[in-house]
């Protein structure tokens, strides 16, 4: 069980938005006036809106400070987090070991992770999906899919 104060998430998001806007604003140095006028206006508007959002989030947070939402979310977010990492690894290796091997491996691991235990599905789905997409993209859409820089 995790004590989770949901309203604090809004504050974290608001601060993150400020950091992103600052990162953009730091690029203005050396930028010609013609190029920076429009983005300056947009960043200023975004900062003002974010200020309102932060103010509202702090107000809500203070109002609900004592009310904590008890949810068993640790297991639930862990699954999502692991799946996001899995997609990240798939994207990282796709141009390293090539489309075919990485996709077959990703589909098998994804199905096992999502508790598919049917052996026929586990064998046939990765092969058929990978082959079908390979055919569609290379023959029909003329896309050259990664062949793997670590392999060739």
């Amino acid at each position, binding site marked *: 069980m995790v004590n989770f104060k949901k309203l604090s998430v809004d504050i974290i998001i608001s601060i993150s*938005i400020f950091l992103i806007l600052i990162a953009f604003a730091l690029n203005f140095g050396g930028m010609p006036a013609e*190029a920076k006028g429009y983005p300056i206006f947009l960043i200023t508007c975004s900062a003002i809106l974010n200020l309102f959002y932060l103010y509202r989030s702090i107000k809500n947070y203070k109002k609900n400070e004592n009310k904590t939402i008890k949810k068993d979310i640790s297991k*639930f977010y862990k699954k999502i987090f692991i799946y996001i990492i899995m997609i990240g690894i798939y994207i990282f290796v*796709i141009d390293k070991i090539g489309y075919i091997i990485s996709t077959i491996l990703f589909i098998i691991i994804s199905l096992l992770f999502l508790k598919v235990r049917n052996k026929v599905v586990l064998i046939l*789905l990765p092969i058929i999906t990978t082959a079908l997409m390979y055919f569609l993209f290379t023959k029909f859409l*003329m896309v050259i899919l990664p062949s793997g820089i670590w392999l060739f």
Partner: protein
Amino acid sequence: MFESILLGISNVFEPFNLLMCIVGLFIGVLFGALPGFSATMGVAVFIPFSYVMEPEAAMLLLAGIYCGGVYGGTIPAILIGIPGTPASAPTALEGQAMTKKGESGKSLLLATIGSTIGGVISSLALLFGAPALAIIAMKVGSPEQAMVAIFGLSVVCMLSYDNMLKGLLVGFISLVVATIGQDPVMGYPRFTFGMYQLIGGIDVVSVLIGIFSIPQVLIMLENLNKDDNKVNKLSKLKITAKDITSNIVNFIRSSIIGVAIGIIPAAGPDIASFFSYNEAKKASKSPEKFGNGSEEGIIASETANNAVTGGSLIPLLTLAIPGSAPAALFLGAMIIHGLRPGPLLFTQNAKEIYTLLVGFLVINICMFFVGYIYCKMAGKILLIPNAILCTIIVVLATVGSFSINQNIFDVIVMYISGIIGYIMVKNDFPTSPVALALLLGPILEENLVQVKTLFGDNLLILFTRPLFTIFFCFTIFSYAFPFIKNMKRKKIVER
């Protein structure tokens, strides 16, 4: 115009184009039918597939997915009781009641006929309405175009009137993101953070694929263990002639409601569906049947939500205002294929655009047959485990975003957009404004630069232009409308 329509007819019936209409429909109905998936997701994932096609075939494929996706929500609404799309919620209510009476086949067939009629009437409205509006839109210059883009962005405000602040914040930040890359005046590379891949700007399609597919996949994973949906048995797909003749007024009324709501930016199929359902209840001789398995209710809801599809493309094609997320994706796809929506589209790209307009009609007619096939197979399709679907969507999104420019950077953009999209959805930030702002941002900046060059600081002179003033009033209204609505709601609550 008549010649252009004939040209459109001859193009649509070319074997490949016709095939794309049907393939699009099959994909679209599948995306609409699977709970958690949507027409928007279908269009986003399949935009890369349209890259190598001729613009006409590409547009027909996406139009098929869009129309099929809106219809597809009907199937799980009736057979499981879960609407595949929000627009099928009234259908779920009535369809489930009819299913309990053993009339699932009848309700599915009525919904399919309603969707087809709604779609056909909206196609006719699009075919004759869009070129007529384009004649007026010919008088649009760069000040009006800038104001139209601002109006389009005010849709952001309307799209998220339940949470305006978050909607506006998302809209403005997305506009900032849209400025990444070379500026339109000097070609100076802005906000590239030292990455050469960003000099040309962020690829909008990669962002849209990420934001409309990955969050849905992750949300489906959250509910993976709860997905033991029970698919109800399908009874005979049979209706009587009386079922149709007694509902003719209902079909026409619901279609008109759907088309009108479709034209209004930000008002989508869900609003049309509920509105039409309520109107049918008011007009019904037996309103007590509503909620207990009313055929009129199903027809009203399904006819209206499919009638929205054609209506929503009218402001997109004539004024470049995408009033919904799928329409915004359409805009993205059109720009990729060199079709710049606006009044000149109907003269400069008559072949492509009339093929789409006539194709829309053909797609909606074919929808009856494709829908019928799906109704027959529905029991099996709805049993496909979400684990398999999620995995395939991730692979499709990855390979699809790679195929845009054949580089891995676009895949990374898709992945990051997907994670941001998930955080947004989990924290009640609307994602549709991202699509609108990213697509309209460059158009807005380009036109603002032209206005500044032409008129300098003397901006008041712009109000001597009637169309500019009209669009200005529309924009003020659309920004003010949610505030007024919120204030009214608060007053009612206080009472």
